[in-house]
């Protein structure tokens, strides 16, 4: 009886072996944003599921720049290319250190893991990384008057500091986003050898009573770079009907932090697993078969 059990288990394990025996790419970590001059660690985690590792290869924009082949000596080797500065000392089969980062380091980074012969099962995934240069100054508003009367035209510009990529500017009137018709856009200005960009956004409208809330009209310019930079500048204007002479106040507000986002592996086109796993349905069927066969044998 027990022998039978054992044989059945062995048989089932053998059947399931092919499916189970798949290497898996557990995680590929490529930060979305990095800063020029900083270092970055690219991580590639996998589960060989008992297979021998043949190679781990890193590609930037399709070109191999680092490989780790255990059979080679040394196992890690680097293939130089622009924007890639590998810290070979600290790079292993599961991570690569790039230091320092350059603006040309932005790109698509792929990790490809292959098992040994004969199947050479291969899994890979990738992540996009952007190298960011933060603005050298906060946004500032120009063209504003100290006092506005109802019906007066308002014509102001907001200008950001030089950055890469270009800062995204947004106008707010009394805290509400300005209607698109009032906003005037300009192409970013590219300046310098490093081709950093300066963004300018205009705002033009006639003053109406609704613009004054509690006697004030507040114009705010918000500058953002993705999620890594967040700064605004606000000016307040006093309405004329108030006895108090309207003044334009500029207040400096929030500053933003930059951060690196985790790569979402699910969006990858490349296989994260080297082979197909049993689907839940298939598993369920197998379980059912097993249960019934056990019942019969017992």
């Amino acid at each position, binding site marked *: 009886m027990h022998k039978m059990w054992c044989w059945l288990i062995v048989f089932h394990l053998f059947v399931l072996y092919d499916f189970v025996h798949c290497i898996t790419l557990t995680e590929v970590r490529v930060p979305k944003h990095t800063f020029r001059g900083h270092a970055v660690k690219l991580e590639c985690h996998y589960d060989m599921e008992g297979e021998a590792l043949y190679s781990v290869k890193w590609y930037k924009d399709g070109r191999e720049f680092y490989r780790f082949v255990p059979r080679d000596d040394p196992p890690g080797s680097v*293939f130089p290319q622009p924007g890639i500065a590998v810290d070979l000392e600290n790079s292993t089969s599961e991570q690569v250190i790039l230091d320092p980062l350059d603006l040309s380091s932005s790109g698509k980074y792929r990790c490809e893991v292959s098992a040994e012969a004969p199947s*050479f099962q*291969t899994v890979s995934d990738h992540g996009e990384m952007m190298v960011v240069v933060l603005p050298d100054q906060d946004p500032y508003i120009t063209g504003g008057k100290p006092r506005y009367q109802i019906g007066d035209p308002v014509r102001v510009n907001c200008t950001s500091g030089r950055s890469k990529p270009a800062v995204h500017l947004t106008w707010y009137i009394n805290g509400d986003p300005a209607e698109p018709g009032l906003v005037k856009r300009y192409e970013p200005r590219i300046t310098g050898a490093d081709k950093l960009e300066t963004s300018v956004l205009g705002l033009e409208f006639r003053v109406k009573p609704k613009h004054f809330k509690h006697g004030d009209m507040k114009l705010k310019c918000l500058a953002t770079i993705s999620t890594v930079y967040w700064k605004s500048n606000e000016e307040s204007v006093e309405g004329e009907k108030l006895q108090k002479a309207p003044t334009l106040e500029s207040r400096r507000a929030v500053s933003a932090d930059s951060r690196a986002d985790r790569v979402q592996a699910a969006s990858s086109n490349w*296989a994260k*697993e080297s082979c197909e796993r049993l689907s839940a349905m298939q598993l369920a069927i197998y379980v059912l078969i097993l249960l019934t066969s056990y019942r019969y044998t017992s």
Partner: protein
Amino acid sequence: MEALVGETIYLPCNVSTHEPGDNVVLVLWYREDKGSPIYSADTRGREVGSAKRWSDDSMFGDRAYFQFEKEPGELAVQNVRETDSGMYRCRVDFIVAQTRNSVVNLTIIVPPERMVIRDQLGMERTTVAGPYSEGDNIKLRCDVYGGRPTPTVTWYRDGVAMVADTKYMPLGKHLRSEIALGPLTRQDLHTKLVCRASNHARANPVEQSVQIDMNFAPLNIRLIGAHQPLSAGRRYDLLCQSAGSRPAASITWFLDGVRLDKSKETTSADGNQTTSTLSIVLNRTDAGKYLSCKAYNTYVQSDALEDGWQLDIQYVPDASVRLGSSLDPDAIREGTDVYFDCIVKAHPAVYKVEWKHNNKTLTRNISQGVIVSKHSLVLQGVSRTTAGNYTCVGFNAEGEGSSPTFELNVMYAPTCAPNQPRVYGVAKQENAEIRCVVDANPPDVEFKWTFNNSAESIDVQASHISRLGTSSIVSYTPMTELDYGTLLCSATNKIGKQRQPCVFHIIAAGRPDQVHNCTVANVSMTSLAVRCYEGFNGGLAQSFFLELRDSHSQEMRFNNTSPVPRFTVPNLHPSAVYQLAVYAFNSKGRSEPYVMSAATQRLPEKQMKDSEKVERPRSPLPLTPTLSIAIGLAAAVLIGSCAIVLALKFPCGASGRRNKETAQGTTVRTSSPGPSDKSVASKEYDGNESDEKNPDVIPDTIDSDDQMEYIKRRQHISTIDTNSPSRLLLTTTAPNQTFIGSSMAAALHANHSSTLGYCTLRNGTPQASNSITNVSMCHMPSTFTTASHTTCTLPRHPVTAGTGAVGPGPLTPNAHHWPSYGGTIAGVRNITAISVTSNQGSPAPPPPSAIAMQHLGPTARTRVCIGLPEDEVSADTPLMMKRESTV
């Protein structure tokens, strides 16, 4: 890269390296959708030639082989399949150089698998689509199965691409290309439509084609020879043609909407034209009817085409004769004016109308009252000859048409038919059947017979009359002299009474009269010719007889019989004198001889003397004709008186003269009848009669040896003869007048007036009583004449009155006959008396109407009394008359 299914494809993969000391270590082939490689060639630790290869069986398997030696290296895949299509990545790992990844897009071209053309109903069409009708809007689909990449489907019409609507049918996973055509016209027939599906220049396109089949309604129809006039009764083969139908049209014929069968259809070789032949005989009644042929195609919903025309039927004139409306065809009498119309129906119209009478064409003849005008015929004053069959004949271009005959019945009152015997010679007590034939229309006639004699006119009893159609026969037996006379036959039909009755003279049949005016001519030495004029034939056919004797020797030298009184006597002696006697004879006997003397010429020397000699003895006789007459008369008186004396003295005289007293029933019995010796008797008379020409001479044919009874009979007959009025009729023809002339006969009638004879002719009712009274009267001998007067009807009176005076006159020359008269009268009287008494004695008197019986009665009795064989009586009762007396 592209490859056709089944081909070998070489997928490139660059394995070259430029790094020194570098080499390939591993070649991996991936399919984009699979994480694991599908092919690997591992050269780590070995030569490239002996690379460790592996191929995924679920993919290429052993079909793939990586060829390092090929520059820059390629994966050969044999016999590619449709499933081999896809993106392939080749990763080449080098010892030194960067790993090289290259991508190849492999497309396997699969030609279209199959193609089906379907019509709107989804029916698969392999060669022919349709048949469609004109004006149809059709759709055809081309379903293309298989093919990678997706084929392009194109429809071509006669090589030109068409606009088609192609879409992918996800359900059947095929392409469907649909074209719309229409409205279809005749030109679209046999249009070839091709559907072509192709997906690669290197792959053979798949094609399927259909031809459009169509049904057409007939385009035209033509009845050949329409609108022409047709002749009635002729067989025509009419043709009707229709073209343009597909399939071939059916042609049907109609006459005024009635379908006609028996037509034959033929189709031209190309099937385009159908010809139907109708063999038809039309008649007059079809005129104006609409004859048409219709062509239709049963496969096409369209109205049939029709062609036809109203028949114009020409025919031979149809004529009929119509009697004028005012005329009653059953009441046309002679003299009526009759007119006919010829009713002609004809097309084309008649150009001539002819009339025919009994199949002879009539022409205008005004003098005969025939007027032929355009379509009518006038007959003026029709007569029986005008009657007959009339037809009129119409002529037109079709021919001549004769009408049925119209029988014109012209009615007329009876008239006497010509060429019928008018004189009947009948012996007394002989039954004669007098036939009267009349011509009458209608022939339904009634006859009336009347007996006329000098004395009276009596209607003949109906019982004696038999009628057969338009002829009537009276059975007539004259019993007495009074029964001789004229029978008038008069017929009546519904038109009227016969205007002129038929007259039949009943005369006593007797010996022929003597020939007269004989002349001797052509006298030669040895021959002479005799020519006489014949006298009355006695009511019977007569022949003539010549006797020539030597006047000296009385030797018979020549005799001959001839139907005409002309003789030629040959073989005579010259200068001899001959006595010639010419007789006429019939079945009743022989006439008196006409006696002449003639002398042949002398021999040339003595010619004159001989002739004188001959004439000398003759001269006394002819020289004095008056004298001879006187002598003759005297001799006759003498002989007559002698005869009377002798007769009185010797009742049974052997001289052969008649004795009236011996004419008794008892004596008659003893007598033996025998044929009379005519020759003897004639000899006696020869001398006298030639000169006397006495019509009343008793026939002398009776032999002198005849017994008394026979003589008496003769006497009896002869008296009748003398009384016969018909004798006179022959000369005068008017019966009424003859009676006056025959006064003597009338007297005799009156004298011995046999009541029997009268009664036979009387009508039934008066006779019954009369006959009886007559008999009783007649028994009184002294008063029998008066009795006869009283008994008999009026016509007798004037006649009897006359007889007394006139009677003896003419009788005197026949003095020698007179004794016989008395005997006759007595005899007759007695006989009648006997017969009547016997009639009376019989318990039932004979029916008064039975004239025949009454006739027969006495006759039979007479025979019995006389005891004569019937043969003798009939054969030897010749009578002689001498009416043509100079007196």
